[in-house]
C-alpha cells in the first residue's frame, strides 16, 4: 500500500474543499482499502466522509425513497420502508457480500465499487481500465465471469454491484453535490459503459460527492424482488441476476421495471422485456416470451457463452416469482 495522508471531515463544505484539492473520499472502505492494498488504487490523500450527515433514509412526498449515501448496506436492507416499498432493493442488498461487509459498506460506495475482473486487480496484467492503453487481458483470457452486454474491444468487465441493478431497474436518480452546487443524474447515465475509455466509470466530476440515491415513486400495488445466480449459494458475486418490479391492476400489467446484473459492463436495463410485458396478462408463456428478449445484442466471449441462456432463464424465473402465474 502506498502511503497517504488522512483527514476526517465533519461537514460537506469541508469535504468538497478537500475533494477539490484531489483528496479521495473514503466511506466504508471495503472497496478502496482492498484495492489500495493491491496498489491498484494509490490515493495520496484520504478524506474520511463517514462523519457527514448523509446517513438518513426518508420517504419522499409521492412515496419514493431517498437513501443517504452513507447509509450502510445493512441499515438500508433492514429499513422498514425499504422492505415494504421496494423489496427488490433490500433483497439485492442482502444477497450482496457478507454480513460483516454490509455493516461497513455504504450505499454511495456500493454504486461506486469497481469491477472484480481478476486482471484489473492484478497489477502485473494488461488492463485498459487500470492502465489506459495497456490492453485487455480478459478479452482473450479467462473471461467466464465477464460481460456479454455493453462491452467494447477495450474492456469486457462487469459492474459487480447488486444494489445498482435494483436502482437501474427502478430508474433511480443519483444526487450529487459539487463546488457548483447540487445536481441529479439518472442512474442510467451515472455508470458509464467502457467504450474506448474504460478508466472513466462514473459521470462524477472531480471532487463531487454523492449525497443520496433517490428511488422514484411507482404506482401501487407494486410487487418487486431480486434473484441472484452464482457459483456458490452465498458470499459470491452474480453470474446473472434479475431485478423485477411489476404493477398489476385489473389483471393487466400496467408498469414493468426490469434490469439484469452480472452480464453487463453496467447494470443492464431491459426495455424490450418491459415493453413486452406492459398491457399483457401475467402467464407462464408471457414470462418466457418476454425473457427471450433479455439477451438481445449479447456478444459472448470464449468462456461465457453460457450466460446468454442463463440470463434468459434468470429473468423468466424472476418474472414468474414476482408476477405469479395467473
Amino acid at each position, binding site marked *: *500500500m*502506498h*502511503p*497517504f*495522508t*488522512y483527514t*476526517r471531515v465533519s461537514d460537506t463544505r469541508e469535504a468538497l474543499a478537500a475533494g477539490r484539492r484531489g483528496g479521495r473520499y*473514503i466511506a466504508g*472502505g*471495503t472497496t478502496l*482499502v*482492498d484495492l*489500495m*492494498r493491491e496498489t491498484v488504487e494509490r490515493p495520496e490523500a*484520504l478524506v*474520511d466522509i*463517514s462523519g457527514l450527515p448523509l446517513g438518513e433514509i426518508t420517504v419522499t412526498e409521492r412515496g419514493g425513497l431517498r437513501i443517504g449515501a452513507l447509509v450502510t448496506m445493512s441499515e438500508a436492507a433492514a429499513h422498514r420502508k425499504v422492505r415494504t416499498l421496494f423489496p427488490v432493493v433490500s433483497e439485492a442488498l442482502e444477497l450482496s*457480500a*457478507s*454480513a*460483516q*461487509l454490509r*455493516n*461497513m459498506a455504504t450505499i454511495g460506495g456500493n454504486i461506486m465499487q469497481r469491477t472484480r475482473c481478476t486482471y484489473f486487480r492484478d497489477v502485473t496484467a494488461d488492463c485498459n481500465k487500470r492502465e489506459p492503453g495497456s490492453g485487455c487481458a480478459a478479452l482473450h483470457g479467462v473471461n467466464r465471469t465477464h460481460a456479454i452486454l455493453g462491452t467494447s474491444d477495450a474492456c469486457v468487465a462487469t459492474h459487480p454491484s447488486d444494489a445498482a441493478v435494483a436502482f437501474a431497474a427502478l430508474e433511480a436518480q443519483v444526487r450529487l453535490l459539487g463546488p457548483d452546487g447540487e445536481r441529479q443524474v439518472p442512474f442510467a447515465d451515472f455508470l458509464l459503459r467502457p467504450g474506448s475509455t474504460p478508466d472513466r466509470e462514473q459521470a462524477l466530476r472531480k471532487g463531487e460527492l454523492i449525497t443520496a440515491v433517490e428511488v422514484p415513486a411507482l404506482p401501487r400495488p407494486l410487487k418487486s424482488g431480486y434473484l441472484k445466480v452464482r457459483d456458490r*449459494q*452465498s*458470499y459470491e458475486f452474480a453470474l446473472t441476476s434479475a431485478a423485477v418490479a411489476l404493477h398489476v391492476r385489473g389483471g393487466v400489467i400496467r408498469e414493468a421495471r426490469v434490469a439484469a446484473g452480472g452480464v453487463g459492463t453496467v447494470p443492464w436495463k431491459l426495455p424490450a422485456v418491459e415493453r413486452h410485458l406492459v398491457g399483457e396478462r401475467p402467464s407462464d408463456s408471457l414470462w418466457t416470451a418476454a425473457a427471450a428478449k433479455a439477451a438481445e445484442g449479447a456478444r459472448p466471449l470464449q468462456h461465457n457463452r453460457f450466460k446468454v441462456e442463463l440470463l434468459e432463464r434468470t429473468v423468466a424465473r424472476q418474472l414468474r416469482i414476482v408476477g405469479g402465474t395467473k
Partner: protein
Amino acid sequence: MSTELPESAVPPPTGAGESSPAPTRRTFIATSTAVGGAVVAGGAIGGSFLAAPEEVAAAEAPPSSPVSLTVNGSRRTVTVDNRTSLLDLLREHLDLTGSKKGCNAGACGACTVLVDGRRVNSCLTLAVRLEGAEVTTIEGLADGDQLHPLQQAFIDEDAFQCGYCTPGQIVSGVGCIQEGHTGSPEEIREWMSGNICRCGCYVKIVRAVEQTAGRK
C-alpha cells in the same frame, strides 16, 4: 493466506497511556524489522518483489496519526502508520493474535471483530479511522475464566478442526445472534456465510450458533 508484510511493521506505533508489556517474540520481531526500515517496507523480506524507489523514499516518513480507541475494555492511545489495518494493529502491536489473517481482502472472515457492537472485517478497517471506537476481539468475549456461551458451544459441538477460522466464526456468531438472524439453520448459514471454514465444519458451527441463540 496472505504473504504480505503488515504495513504497520514500520514503524511500530508508540504507545501512550498504556504501559508497554515486556518484549515478546512478536514485539521483538516487529522492532527488529523496523530497524531494517526502508528495506522492510519494500517487501524484501517477503522476497516477492523489489521496492520501487519512491516507495523506499516514502517509507522513511510514512504519514502517521494518533488514535484513541477502546480494545476489550481497555483504553489505548497509539500513533499508527495511516496504512495500518485494525487487524495488524491488534496482532502486531497490541499482542492480540486471536483475530486471524486469512485473505486480507474481506473474503474469508477470519479477521472478524466487533466495532461498536457490529461485526466487521478488521483487515479492511483502517485503524486510523477508529477514534473513540470500541473494539471487541475474541480475547474480549470471555468473562474471566468463564467462557462466552458461544465459545463453550463450539467446544461442546466440536465445531472446529484446525481452528484457524474459529475466532472469526465465534465473533461473527456473536454478531449474528445479536442481530437476531438465527431463526433456522438455513438463516444461520446465510448470515454466517461471511466466514469461510477450510476444514468444512459448517454443520457443527451452525449447531453451536443455534444452540447458543436458543439459550438466550
